[in-house]
């Protein structure tokens, strides 16, 4: 008897949670159409080309999956940190450090079976990302340095480190290009379907989303992270972990971002070079916000952003609309989302 009204309330709450992102998407789509028209294009043609490019062939689906993996993992990284009230803007740097770990170790595991090499490499990538985030955690707890500043600065340092590594210690033996040697065959992530690039990393990312959900909503640690992120004093008075929970959240966030970078090297690029990441760790913030900091939402948002990326190439080819527009669409989606969010906040307060 009590279950039925509860189920109804749950459905209503779910609809309320979904309504705003959907409205934001519709508004963003309309605004983007206007931009296409202003750019002298045909918005309907552009939209169909975009959809065709993203979902029109098995290869397109595969590419969306390839793009979605790092976005999903970094999106989850940002989600966990933000849920704990930690503004980790450093997913990009943590991702790069994870990638460095796999590129560095991946050339040395040729003699190992893949079943051993891969877990070791991925663990190293996660550990690298966690350690990089850990610098920000130590700075915050020991010296009170705002993690927004420190994680942004650590992004630049990671970028510089990467540049130095691929031109120095990790530069390929041939010495022709500023890139690392290709990793061993045993260090490479298996593909899911023969002939397509989509790889097991996507499955790992989806499992990570399920695990993140379980952590946040089904464990005491996740409860503590969320509570401490929202009201640290009340959480402390309740005898729950606060600083400990926040540090764990930041480390976990870094681990997920590092994993994203590691998987990218292991499954897609096989080597390290400058501009290795097209800013996955930054897009991740948009992915996490669009997904309303809920792992399920982040899965949808990561797929959406991946589809936009993949479809934009076809849009450029067929409709003559610049792929740059897609960045504009992504930005418009975020702005629309924040605008709707704001509106909601105002009516809620009244």
């Amino acid at each position, binding site marked *: 008897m*009590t279950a039925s*009204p*509860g189920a109804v*309330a*749950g459905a209503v*709450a779910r609809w309320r949670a979904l309504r705003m992102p959907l409205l934001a998407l519709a508004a963003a789509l309309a605004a983007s159409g206007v931009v296409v028209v202003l750019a002298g294009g045909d918005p309907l043609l552009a939209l169909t080309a975009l959809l065709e490019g993203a979902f029109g062939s098995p290869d397109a689906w595969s590419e969306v999956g390839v793009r979605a993996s790092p976005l999903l993992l970094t999106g989850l990284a940002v989600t966990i940190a933000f849920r704990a009230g930690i503004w980790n803007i450093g997913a990009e740097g943590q991702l790069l450090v994870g990638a460095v770990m796999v590129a560095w170790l991946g050339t040395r595991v040729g003699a190992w079976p893949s079943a051993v090499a891969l877990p070791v490499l991925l663990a190293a990538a996660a550990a690298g990302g966690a350690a990089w985030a850990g610098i920000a955690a130590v700075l915050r707890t020991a010296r009170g340095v705002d993690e927004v500043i420190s994680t942004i600065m650590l992004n630049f340092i990671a970028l510089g480190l990467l540049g130095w590594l691929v031109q120095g210690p990790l530069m390929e033996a041939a010495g022709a290009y500023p890139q690392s040697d290709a990793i061993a065959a045993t260090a490479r992530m298996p593909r899911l379907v023969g002939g397509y690039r989509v790889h097991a990393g996507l499955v790992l990312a989806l499992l990570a989303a399920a695990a993140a959900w379980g952590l946040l*909503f*089904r*464990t*005491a*640690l*996740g*409860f*503590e992270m*969320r*509570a401490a992120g*929202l*009201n640290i*004093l*009340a*959480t*402390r*008075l*309740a*005898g*729950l972990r606060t600083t400990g929970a926040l540090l764990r959240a930041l480390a976990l966030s870094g681990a997920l971002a590092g994993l994203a970078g590691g998987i990218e090297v292991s499954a897609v690029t096989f080597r390290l070079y400058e501009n290795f990441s097209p800013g996955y760790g930054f897009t991740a913030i948009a992915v996490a916000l669009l997904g309303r900091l809920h792992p399920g939402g982040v899965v949808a948002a990561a797929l959406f952003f991946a589809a936009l990326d993949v479809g934009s190439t076809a849009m450029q080819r067929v409709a003559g609309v610049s792929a740059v527009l897609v960045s504009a669409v992504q930005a418009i989606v975020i702005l629309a989302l924040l605008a709707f969010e704001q509106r909601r906040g105002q009516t809620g307060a009244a």
Partner: protein
Amino acid sequence: MTPVLALRGITKRYGGVAALDGVDLDVRAGEVHALLGENGAGKSTLMNVAYGLVAPDAGAIAVDGRPRRFANALDARRAGIGMVHQEFALVDALSVAENLALALSPPGEWRWRRARVAAAAARLAARAGLELGDLDAPVGGLPVGLRQRIEIVKALAGETRVLILDEPTAVLTPAESAQLFAVLDRLRGDGAAVVFITHKLSEVTALADRVTVMRRGRVVARTTRGEADEAELARLMVGALLLGAAAVPAPAPDAGLQLQLEAVRVTRSQSVGLDGVSLALHAGEILGIAGVDGNGQDALFELLTGLCPPLHGTVWLGGAPLRHFDPATLIDAGVACIPPDRLRQGVVAAMSVRENAALNRRLLGAGGWRVLPAAQRAAAQTMVDAYAIKADGLDTPVRGLSGGNVQKLIVARALATAPRLLVAVNPTRGLDIAAAEAVWAAVGKALERGAGVLLVSTDLDEIVARAHRVAVLYRGRLSAPLARPFPVERLAALLAGREAA
């Protein structure tokens, strides 16, 4: 005599519920008019209508007999109505003068003219007979009473003839309340009309010329000074509910000690600490800690919740000395608290009723490392049922609950941990009588189980009604406890620091 403010047939519905149902109210120049009622009776909504913040569904407003329609608060201010809300609208980082400039500067003023603002502030302050102190001090560091005075000066800006105050004494110390009453008295003498919202009966009989009593969105009584005593007003306010505290059975004479403090010293940088405090609390006993706010209550709360360790002295819980002071250790030792600031210290407002009901180490840890929503839901439902907590489902954020219901949830959660010691700071502040009775009924059950209750309250009436013994905090020092029946004169002297502790 034409009332300066007349409300006629004001009706306001939220969803299907009538918050106000055909309310009439006349406010005359030169009177203090008390608007009395329990939480949720519609007092604040009615005054928000008069101040242009809430648009009524039906009804009319007249100022000096002329019909008015307020689209917003600015309209109301132009008509001579000012209001001071419970939550102050002050910018902490700005100085007193800069905050006043936000309200006192003439429209279109673009320059910062401190002298002009200071002159206007001085004129208004003189009218109300209040002291603003250093106009260049940042507002953030000022005591609540002074912040309220700034708000009053802001509300008096322009030609304010009706000043509305929403539960003005809820945040004030007794001394600050007395000062406020002197200000209101002076404004009344100056020909202004003062409306103050309250549910404290003593304030009504002390100050009000006329009283309008509201219950469930309607006016249930109108009376004048001397016509109704406190008991009669209380009966009108709560309706059929029976008044009077349940008799507190005294603890067994041989009951063991739940809490003992010996020569405890706590220092704090921002406020008064504790200076050689000793006390003993027995099982089944309520020990009242009376005192004017700011005499060490914060330090005592932080000591007994583990936020602040003692510099010297010993704390025993149930006979065992405490060595580590952090909230987790104290909770494990059987301490539960009802904190003074419920939204900042008691709940995570953005989380649901279900999750807040589990916001405690003992309750959350019951499931091990896992969180089981079904078990949480059942536990929360038990609390909601047992304490008649009004919430729109267990998944609503606590932010959406009224203050009284938040407090009931905090009390329910504290007692669900079966504590040996309950540290209750102002446990019924801001609650209506029914909610306060529910809180005390629950505390009574904990007492029967053998818990000790440390009642830290600035409300002397409550302490006298509930506590078995009372000790008084004054500047960080605690007096020897007094037993029932409490010698009122001695208490008053201790509160004022006129008698050595």
